């Protein structure tokens, strides 16, 4: 099965270094996975604001993205918890025939139809349709084979680096449709961090929300920042060198909120960026200088040259 990149909105326009990192990590210089671009994807669309505003439109736009992967017979690789959650939830809604029918009525205006990907049943002429597969970058990396390849490709081991992993809500919940990790005791990002040579620290309320979701960040930023501050205090208490998350929206929140409550910032990076650092990617391509909280103390501790800001 081939994979199709789905970068969403925050990564390409605000943190393009994450896009570079993901392409490099998954590509020929990294883990050598079969991933390509499908042109014409749009916003997933963003679950917080769009699903809140109008479920039918949210679902139709998500279904359009799914149709593009369906045509290409690809599994979608999301690199953002929001895209992951939105597209996955859409496949769940679309498994109800009535909802699929209503959505396809809208899609007929643009000549598309969501059915799922047809598959022949072995030993018969019957076909079944299975939903378009929506994957998370972390779930794809965390297989025995890929983790082995990852462990063999470490060029800059992250010795003595204390990492605070922040999973983000939509990686974990709702469990009935995410199911990529243990929702109460997730391990996959921690495992990746450890393979890179770093230490993944424990801290209070590790699974709590960053505060940004549900349209709260854009509407009532003070509330979003107050929730971030709560988490930040727990992370800061454990003297973390870096906050690592599989979600660019949580990253954006941690990276921008910190200035509202602390002068002693802790850098925030996407798990793909941390992998790219450890795997020996060109540091000037990871966009680390774009992060509001300087990543230089982290790079200095790893023992590599800092990036200009």
């Amino acid at each position, binding site marked *: 099965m081939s994979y199709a990149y789905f*970068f969403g*909105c*925050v990564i*390409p*326009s*605000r943190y*393009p*270094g994450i*896009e*570079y990192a993901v*392409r490099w990590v998954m590509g020929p210089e990294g883990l050598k996975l079969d991933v390509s*671009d499908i*042109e*014409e*994807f*749009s*916003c997933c*669309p*963003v*679950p*917080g*604001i*769009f*699903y*809140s*505003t*109008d*479920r039918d*439109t949210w679902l*139709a*736009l998500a279904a*359009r993205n799914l149709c593009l992967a369906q045509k290409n017979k690809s599994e979608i690789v999301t690199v953002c918890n929001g895209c992951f959650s939105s597209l996955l939830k859409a496949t769940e809604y679309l498994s109800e025939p009535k909802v699929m029918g209503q959505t396809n009525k*809208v*899609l007929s*205006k*643009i000549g*598309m139809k969501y059915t799922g990907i047809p598959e022949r049943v072995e030993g018969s002429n019957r076909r079944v349709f299975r939903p378009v597969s929506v994957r998370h970058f972390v779930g794809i990396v965390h297989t025995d084979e890929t983790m082995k390849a990852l462990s063999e490709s470490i060029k800059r081991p992250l010795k003595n680096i204390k990492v605070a992993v922040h999973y983000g*809500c*939509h990686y*974990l*919940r*709702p*469990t009935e449709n995410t199911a990529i990790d243990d929702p109460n005791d997730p391990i996959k990002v921690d495992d990746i961090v450890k393979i890179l040579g770093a230490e993944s620290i424990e801290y209070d309320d590790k699974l*709590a*929300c960053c*505060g940004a*979701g*549900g*349209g*709260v960040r*854009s*509407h*009532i930023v003070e*509330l*979003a920042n*107050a*929730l971030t501050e*709560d988490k930040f205090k727990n992370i800061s208490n454990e003297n973390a060198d870096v906050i690592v998350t599989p979600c660019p929206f949580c990253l954006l929140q941690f990276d921008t909120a910190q200035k509202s409550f602390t002068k002693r910032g802790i850098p925030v990076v996407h798990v793909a960026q941390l992998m790219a650092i450890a795997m020996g990617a060109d540091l000037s*391509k990871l*966009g680390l200088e774009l992060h509001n909280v300087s990543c230089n103390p982290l790079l200095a501790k790893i023992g590599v040259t800092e990036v200009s800001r």
Partner: protein
Amino acid sequence: MTQAPKQPNPEFAKKVVEAGGKTLNLCFQCGTCTGSCPSGRQTAFRTRKLVRRAQLGLKDDIMNNEDLWLCTTCYTCYERCPRGVEIVDVIMALRNMSVKEGHMAPQHKKVAELISKTGHMVNLRDEDKALRKKLGLAEVPPTVLEVVEGLEQVKKICAATGFDKLIEGGSK
């Protein structure tokens, strides 16, 4: 002077169920949701009360109330609910209904407009293009930002569902 008791409105409650809150009536008001809510730690938002108001159909207490927009959709309550109430979906149904009545925060309207016009919720500025180029990425991402036909499809969908009118403040 005493306040007149609030009148339940079963019709409204039924509409919430139809709009996506199909598990609404399973709630037996234990309060696990309130105890789990991160926004509830910071504000006076009480998830259990919102669900109760929805069950009773107390429309005026819900529709134009800021409480409805304090949920970060973290799904902690949804996971912990002993009755299997899909609380976030109930809240989303209520938000959809509230937007239809013309209540939409200007900031949310701005994001919604950006998606219906550009296909993305974050705008691609000239400086972003320059940065992408510097990193060796395509200046414009290979999405509807680049492919005009794709953007036309997004616009057609937003017109077909009545979304454009909805975010202008009119009803669908």
